[in-house]
């Protein structure tokens, strides 16, 4: 294995190990798992209203989608919490001076940190999604292969959150970085809601591209990526470029913010 690559893997490994050792991480994980297990009651197998049987599979699909979105949002919040104190902790505990006194470049360090946090939060989310997947399979004998694929796709949102928090935490207090990124995510969800309402046939729609619409399309499409990922759960088909645009948007944001993070950390003083 090339030395540069093994340094990145080592730093990613330490990042995961150091986070998992934190009591707050264990508490968050246990609470999330308990919450997901509580949902298993929704998968009883038969649903009746006024004595009439409902289409169980359709309801299971809807419930699974809702839980998919809730888990994705909660893990996004957790990824932000995990990322916001990473640099500060490394500085305070002397790990930065330990790492940089070895022949390790700043690019390797940043890459290792991003990979570690991304892998940890993605595994966290995948485990929670896998519990739902297994619950549906065990209780209803229904296999939703798209559920786990959707979880993996949704992890790109986590990558965005990790890189954005790491970058902003170099420029402002950790809590401000956390609030900024959460603000971006909230605006993305609200804007998607308003946009889909304004494009409803019952609502009068202004034709042509307005300034707000341009901002809407350029804004990080966190909500859109989540919806794009969740479309793998059901049987929704492709709807052209706009359908995959949110995913491309978030990927481009990850690349831009990643470059800015490398550039910003290049001149950072190690304490």
């Amino acid at each position, binding site marked *: 294995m090339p*030395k540069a690559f*093994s*340094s990145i893997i*080592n730093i990613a490994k*330490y990042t995961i190990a*150091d986070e998992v*050792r934190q009591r707050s991480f264990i508490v968050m994980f246990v609470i999330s798992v308990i919450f997901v297990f509580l949902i298993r009651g929704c998968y009883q197998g038969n649903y009746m209203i006024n004595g009439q049987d409902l289409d169980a599979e359709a309801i299971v699909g809807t419930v699974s989608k809702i839980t998919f979105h809730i888990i994705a949002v909660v893990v996004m919040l957790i990824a932000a919490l995990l990322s916001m104190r990473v640099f500060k902790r490394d500085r*305070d*505990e*002397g*790990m930065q*001076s*330990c*790492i*940089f*006194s*070895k*022949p*390790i*470049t700043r690019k390797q360090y940043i890459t290792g940190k991003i990979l570690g946090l991304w892998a940890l939060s993605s595994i966290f989310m995948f485990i929670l999604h896998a519990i739902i997947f297994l619950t549906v399979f065990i209780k209803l004998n229904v296999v939703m292969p798209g559920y786990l694929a959707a979880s993996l796709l949704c992890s790109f949102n986590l990558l965005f959150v990790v890189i954005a928090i790491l970058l902003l935490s170099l420029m402002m207090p950790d809590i401000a970085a956390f609030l900024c990124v959460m603000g971006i995510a909230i605006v993305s969800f609200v804007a998607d809601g308003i946009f889909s309402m304004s494009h409803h046939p019952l609502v009068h729609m202004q034709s042509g591209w307005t300034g707000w619409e341009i901002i809407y399309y350029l804004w990080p499409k966190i909500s859109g990526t989540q919806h794009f990922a969740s479309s793998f759960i059901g049987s929704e088909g492709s709807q052209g470029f706009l359908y995959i645009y949110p995913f491309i948007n978030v990927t481009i944001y990850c690349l831009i913010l990643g470059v800015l993070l490398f550039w910003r950390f290049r*001149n950072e*003083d*190690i*304490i």
Partner: protein
Amino acid sequence: MPDQSTYIFSMIELNAVTKRYGSLAAVDNVSFSVKAGEYFALLGPNGAGKTTIVKMLLDFTQPTSGSLSINSISSTNAASRAAVGYLAENFHIPPYLSGWQYLQRCAELLNINRSDAREQCRRIVESIGMQGREHTKSGTYSSGMIQRFGLGAALVGKPKLLILDEPVSGLDPIGIREIRQLLESLKNQGMTIFLNSHLLSEVEKICDNAAIINRGKLLVKDKISALVKEGDSLEDVFVRYVKG
């Protein structure tokens, strides 16, 4: 036939190095070199710029002007730190790691294979006198024990150059003596030592050469035997230079 010292290369070189923080010059046009195998002490009062020089050497911070090199490799190149062991001032070990785990991490970061790392760490734990305590969490260590592990971590990978920033701070007199004996034993292995210390009596016992800086300026650099005249101590010399 040329003198043998002609072949001794510089392990550390500083060329007209300046570091400014706004209008304040923390290091002002400092140039000197440290030869391989030398035990060198950088002396100065608090805020003189000693730690800034160390941080520039390790590329923790960039100089405003000038250049630094280790082993003839520019300090901006990570490869210059391949054979460097560093003990930071106010050294820390994450409280959830044991001293052993910390040493293992240092070995892994240097890409030392697992069995060699284990053997090296075992020897280091012995040499710093921490057998029996290496597997307990560092949160339970005293500051002296942490300092010993810090020195141990700097020795991982058998470095050619040791950069030690206040290596005996927090140690009791017995600990100071043990560390001094350890540093003296390393001298026989041809290691170069760059020492930042306030403990002038220890510097006088260990080091061959010293430089004194004050307010970022290099005041003097010479052999300790040349600086300290008959009946003087290094402390007298230090006070004389710093007070001007």
